[in-house]
């Protein structure tokens, strides 16, 4: 194994720290940094105060197609593409930058985690690069939205131009039933920080 310079090593640690701060899972860290698994686990524990969650990463492309995730993921992916095309930065830098910008555009509620997690954003980029998902223009607004690759390109409208009947209904629940929802939100958080999605 080639010896790395102290500078490179520090850069890797900085990158890993930033990724952990944004909520990266261990698999992502292992794949994107040159640090050993042991050091990554140590870093993770020091920063988050808990062991990294175990279990497989989400591997379904269908998640990105349902209404709310589709809009969030499309925001992230279009920003990512813009950065790759115009800012000429590396893939993992573009993912973290685009993710920060995505959080800025659609800030999560203080009680709930962001709809699109960094790990999901990372898998999304991999799905996109391996042509499992693609961006298709909406015929009405001409914005680019995520859809399955190799789907017949007939005229289609995006989820914002053509709102599904029950879109956004979930959001109204918290106003009426406060205590239940709080409990539900807490279990949601524990599920998220616990095993996997």
């Amino acid at each position, binding site marked *: 194994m080639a010896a790395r310079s102290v500078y490179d090593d520090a850069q890797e640690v900085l990158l890993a720290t930033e990724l952990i701060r944004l909520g990266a899972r261990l698999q992502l860290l292992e794949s994107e940094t040159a640090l050993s698994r042991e050091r990554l686990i140590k870093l993770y524990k020091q920063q988050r105060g808990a062991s990294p969650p175990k279990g497989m990463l989400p591997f379904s492309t269908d998640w990105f197609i349902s209404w709310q995730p589709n*809009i*969030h993921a*499309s*925001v992230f992916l*279009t*920003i990512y*593409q*813009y*950065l790759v095309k*115009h*800012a*000429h*930065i590396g893939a993992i*830098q*573009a993912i973290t*930058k685009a993710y*920060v*910008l995505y959080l800025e*555009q*659609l800030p999560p509620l203080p009680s709930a985690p962001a709809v699109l997690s960094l790990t999901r954003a990372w898998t999304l980029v991999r799905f996109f690069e391996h042509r499992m998902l693609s961006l298709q*223009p909406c015929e009405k*607004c*001409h*914005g*680019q*939205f995520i859809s399955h690759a190799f789907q017949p390109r007939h005229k289609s409208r995006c989820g*914002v131009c053509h709102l599904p009947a029950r879109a*956004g209904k979930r959001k109204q629940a918290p106003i009426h039933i406060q205590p239940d929802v709080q409990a539900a939100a807490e279990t949601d958080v524990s599920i998220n920080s616990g095993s996997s999605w």
Partner: protein
Amino acid sequence: MTTPDLLSSIRDTNLAYLILAQQMVRQDRAAAIYRLGISSELADLLDTLSPAQIVRLASNNVLLMRLRLDTTVAGILSDLSKDRTLVQAHASILFATQSAEPAEQCHTTER
């Protein structure tokens, strides 16, 4: 508003815009390229401008920045019947889909 007032407001806006844009590029180049909707070449240029050059550029009587809105985007953004977060998401998708610097394309076609 009289014409001299109008022109001096335009110059003030130009100056404020250029100062902000340069600050954004120096602070975070990639994010600035996205937020300003400019090419990386223009970002590099903004980065190197001296204060004197900025003042010179700003003293133009026309606005230096162009609206990123076209009729579709403006229509979507001004639709008050839709949820605000949804409109925000839609707008950022549309802005990121647009190409950087429409002005640059005009130059290349002229050549």
